[in-house]
Structure formats: C-alpha cells, structure tokens
C-alpha cells in the first residue's frame, strides 16, 4: 500500500512538473514583460538594464528554477489587467466555479444511478428505451447549445400558437406548449451570502439558488447521458455474472441482489470514469460560464485570453492542472482501496 501511494505521488509530481514546464515555456515565449511594464517611451538602454535586473537574460534553466520556486509559494506574479496577485484573482473566481460543479455533480449522481440501474434491470421496457434514446441525443448536443435552448425556453420564454384560439381547448393547448420564461440566466445574482474569505455562496437563499438552476442543468446535461449508459452497461454485465445467479438461486430477494450485490460492483468502473470526467467537467465549465456569464474561473480564463493577460493564463493552467492531478490521484487510491483485485504494489495485471 505504501509503495503504491509513493508511486502515485511520484507520478502526480511528475505530471505537475511537466505542466509547470509547459506553463513556463508559454510565459517565456509570449509577450514581452518589459513592454507590459514600461510602455513605449522608455529608451532601449534602460530597457536592457531593466531586463538584466529582472533576470530575463539568464539561461532558461535558471529562469525556470526561479519560476518554480515562486510557483511553490503560490506566487505567479501580478495580473496585467486586475493589477493584483493572480492567485487572489483565481481565489475570487474559484468559489463560483466550484459551486456550479457541485450542483451539476449532485444532479448527475442523483439522476444517473437510478436511471442507469432501472434500464439495466428492465432493458426491454419502453421507459428504458426512452432513456437510451434520449441519452444518445443528449451526447450529440453540445453543452453550449443545451444552455442556449434552456435560456430560450425558461428565461426568454416561447409562445407557440398552432391551435385555433377560438376553441376552448385550443388556447389551453397553446398555453401548454408555450413557456413563461423569467428564469434568471445571467450571472450569479445580487443576493449572495458571504461565507468566509472570498467565498460568496448561492446556496444560502432561495432567491440566489434559482440563478444556479439553468447553468447546473446545462453542465450536468453533458455528463448525464454518459453516466447513464456506463452504469447500465456495467450493471447488465454484472447481472450476467455467476455470483448474481447464485444469489438468485439461494432465494435472496431481487431488491437485495440489485442494490446490495450488483450495484457495488457496478460502481467500481464508474469511480474511475467519474474521476477522469472531472477534468472534462472543468473544461465544460468554460463553455457553461461563457453562455451564462457566470463569474467563475472559466469565464475569467477566456477574458484573460482576450486581454493577453499571460500571468493569469499561466496561473489558471497551474491551478486546473493541480485540480486534475489531485482528483486523478485520489481516484486511483480510492479504486485501489475499494477493489481488492487491484495489485497495489506490483505492475497492473
């Protein structure tokens, strides 16, 4: 176990090292910090001295080591645009993204497990077929399009009038097809509750929670079909296995077999896939936050690209890299703990 832990930690450090080298290479090659600092009017001689003072003429390795030393102390310099340390800018935007991801994860977990299990237990029922059909359509819809459709339906509202209004049921059917709109679809609202530090939350009051609804549904929509299909496929396979048949033969109640015996083994691969998908979820927050102007890290990152705010871009890359590395390592460790067939020390089978 200890050897496995150390191996995983070493792997994680290696990945962080690679990310830092890439980030540094980007920083080194993009833009001229002197230009950013002093502007046009300063003569070339002064620029040269400033360059020497800042150590910009040092060899790549020396400069990288300096960068790494600062990075270990979470010092990535100042954002050009906000004119404050980039880590503070990130910390200010982080809670919004995390709250969005938390809400989406909640939706994914609470919906995918029951639906996936149901369509595995009753694969031929019309409801299962409906779920499967909807899920392949869901996979084919890009997340920003889901978001736009949600905005059109629930925020702007639609009015469809295919039926003649003069008949009583006509107007009733028209009303049924049309929506009111009015759901907030822009930003986080003004009723945020302060928790501590830079963390303002949407969860504390009903008025601010509604701001979370449409973005969270959009973000969840991309992962939900994937997890439903995965859980269904794994569950179907587990239900074919000998131990389930044996449990049936012993006369254990079906409910107990499904939810105690089968579901446990179904969740194993779901954990690994889930861990990898956290990375995808972060990528999709960029899209979701753009559509809803949700003031999180993704929107901040895109704005930083627009403004060529290189220190902020670098910091975002490092922070996101760190999130990925931590989640992947944790997932591996958890998987090793819950699945005794994984050889923790030796080579993978």
């Amino acid at each position, binding site marked *: 176990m200890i050897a496995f832990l150390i191996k995983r930690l070493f792997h994680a450090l290696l*990945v962080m090292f*690679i990310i830092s080298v890439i980030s540094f290479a*980007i920083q080194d*090659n*993009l*833009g001229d910090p002197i230009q950013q600092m002093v502007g046009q009017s300063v003569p070339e001689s002064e620029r040269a001295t400033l360059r020497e003072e800042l150590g910009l003429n040092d060899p790549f390795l020396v400069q990288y080591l300096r960068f790494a030393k600062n990075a270990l102390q979470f010092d990535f310099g100042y954002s050009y645009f906000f004119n404050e340390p980039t880590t503070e800018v990130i910390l200010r935007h982080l809670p919004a993204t995390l709250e969005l991801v938390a809400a989406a994860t909640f939706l994914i977990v609470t919906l995918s497990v029951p639906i996936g299990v149901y369509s595995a237990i009753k694969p031929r029922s019309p409801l299962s077929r409906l779920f499967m059909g909807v899920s*392949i*359509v869901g*996979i*084919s*819809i*890009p*997340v*920003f*399009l889901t978001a*736009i*459709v949600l*905005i*059109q339906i629930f925020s*702007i509202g639609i009015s469809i009038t295919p039926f003649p209004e003069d008949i009583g049921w006509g107007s009733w059917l028209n009303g049924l097809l049309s929506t009111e709109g009015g759901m907030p679809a822009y930003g986080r609202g003004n009723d945020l509750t302060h928790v501590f530090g830079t963390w303002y939350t949407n969860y504390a009051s009903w008025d601010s929670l509604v701001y979370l609804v449409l973005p969270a549904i959009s973000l969840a929509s991309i992962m939900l079909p*994937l997890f439903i*299909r*995965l859980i269904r*496929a*794994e569950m179907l*396979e587990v239900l074919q296995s000998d131990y389930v048949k044996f449990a049936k033969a012993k006369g254990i109640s079906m409910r107990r077999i499904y939810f105690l015996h089968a579901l446990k083994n179904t969740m194993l*691969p779901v954990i690994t896939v889930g861990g*990898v*998908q956290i*990375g*995808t979820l*972060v*990528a*999709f927050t*960029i*899209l979701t936050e*753009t*559509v809803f102007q949700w003031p999180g890290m993704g929107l901040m*990152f*895109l704005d930083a*690209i*627009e403004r*060529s705010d*290189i220190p902020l*871009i670098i910091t975002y*890359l490092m922070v*996101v*890299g760190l999130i*990925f*590395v931590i989640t*992947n390592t944790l997932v591996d460790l958890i998987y090793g703990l819950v699945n005794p067939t994984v050889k923790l020390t030796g080579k993978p089978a």
Partner: protein
Amino acid sequence: MTTTTPPVPSHWARFRDSYLLYSFKRDLVAQTCLLVFVSMVAAAFLAPWLAPMNPYDLAQIDILSSELPPFWIAGSDPSYLLGTDAQGRDLLSTILYGARVSLIIGFGAVILQALIGISFGLLAGYLGGRVDAFLMRLADIQLSFSTLMVAIIVGAVFKATFGGETFSEYAVVLLVLIIGLAEWPQYARTVRASVLAERSKEYVDAARVMGFRAKRIMFRHILPNTLSPIFVISTVQVANAIISEAALSFLGLGMPETQPSLGSLIKSGFDYIQSGSWWITLIPGTVLVVLVLVINLLGDWLRDVMNPRLYKG
C-alpha cells in the same frame, strides 16, 4: 489428379456477401442515418451551387435585410427561406457554407489524429518496453486533462502566439492541428490494444522469422488486422471533432465570423437571442445536432456489427 482452387472473390463480391451489408439492409435506423448524413455532406460540399447567395461575398450582403425571420413566421421575406442573420446574410446559404467548414475541419482533424494515433499505437504495442511506457504515459496524462481542455489550452496558446489576425486567416489549418493534437490518444490506445492481441499470433512470428523488418510487419501485417476498431472509433471521432470545433468557435478560439462554421454561427446568433431572433442561433444549432447525431448513430450501429466487445458504453 487436378486440384481446382476456387477463384478469389473480388472486393465487390466480398462486400456483397458481407455481414456488414446484410445487417445494413435490415437496419432502418442505419439506412436513414446514412441517407441523412450523405445528403448533408453533399449539400455542404455543393454549397457554391446550391446556396442562394455567397455569404463570403460582401457585395451580396444587404444590412437592411438583417434579422429577417424564417418563412413560417410573419414578416419574413420569401427570398430568404430560413431568414437572415444580424449582418443580413441569408441563413440557409451561411449554414450550407458553415457546414462545409465544420465537415472539412472534422475530417481533417480525424485524419491527423489517426495518423499520429495509429503510428504511436503501433510503435507502443509492437515495440513495448520504454517506448510503450513513455507513449502511453503521455496519452494518459493528456486524456486525464480531457481532450476539450487540451484543445482549449492549445487554441489559447496559438491565438496568443499568432495574434487574432493571423489566427483567423489560418483558422482552418490551425483548428485541424489543435483538434488533431488534442485527440490522438483515443486512437493510440485502441490501436495499441489490438496490436498487443495481434502481436502474439503466429503470422507475426512467421513474418519475423522470415526476416521482415519491424516497420514492414507493423504497417503491412499487423495494421490491416486492426482496421475494424479503427473504423469504428473513426466515426465517433468525426462527431467529436465537429463538436470540439463548434465549442472552440463558440469560445472565440475558432473560425472567425467572416468565414463561419456552424459553431461560430451559433456564437454570433447567441448575441441576438435576447432580442427575439432565436433562429440565427437555433437553426444552425439544430443542423449541428442532427449532423452529430446521425454520425453517432452510425458509429453505434457499426460498433455493434463489427466489434461488439470493443466498447462498453
């Protein structure tokens, strides 16, 4: 005594008797999807002849006829079947040209990732050892970041390096490069897995004993036997590449508005959705979804027919 060997069936005869064609003839969903897909591709690539106007030609655009609704809504102009966008471009023509751009990037990116992925997968699977460990670790790291994230980062770096102007000018090539570089691990992993299975078979040993070089064995002997999984993931990857392109364009890291793809059409229309002009964004969106959906359904069908145990999902 004369032995008569049966004549070698031609490619066409083999195809005619194949299980692939047999199951295709019996699957209505697959037939419909192929029909829709082929007609969409044909319409997109025949856009210069089919489209009522050329959206790249500024002389044909009239700003006065901007934001006209499609034909079934009151206030529409019959010469613009699906209405116009905010710049007064005919939406139908813009969608046809946009679908062409999306398809070119989608196919181009898949060809590039297939080239990288198949070579790396063959090398890793056949040579094993350090090469394998290095390439697969690289693929793992990249996959743990998710392909879209990698594409966004590479796109951002390209945009910052080249500047907005140059980026827009070479956007098609750059997008093929970005998506190709971001998604090769899928191919490499699939190819490696089937190479590992093939490598221990006798025909490979025979070829090695006969003194063929590794390169010949890899590309001439093993590769043809790994083609069916490659075929299956290629369909899914085309759909993924088209979605990735749309996502990048939506974020402003893709095609410029002057040369729109479906993604940048959706993006430019999104600014007008609050003013009630939903068609500028939702009609190209529907086209995109239908295109991706039929490719995904075809991929599903192909997977069931060719290799039932390739995927679990």
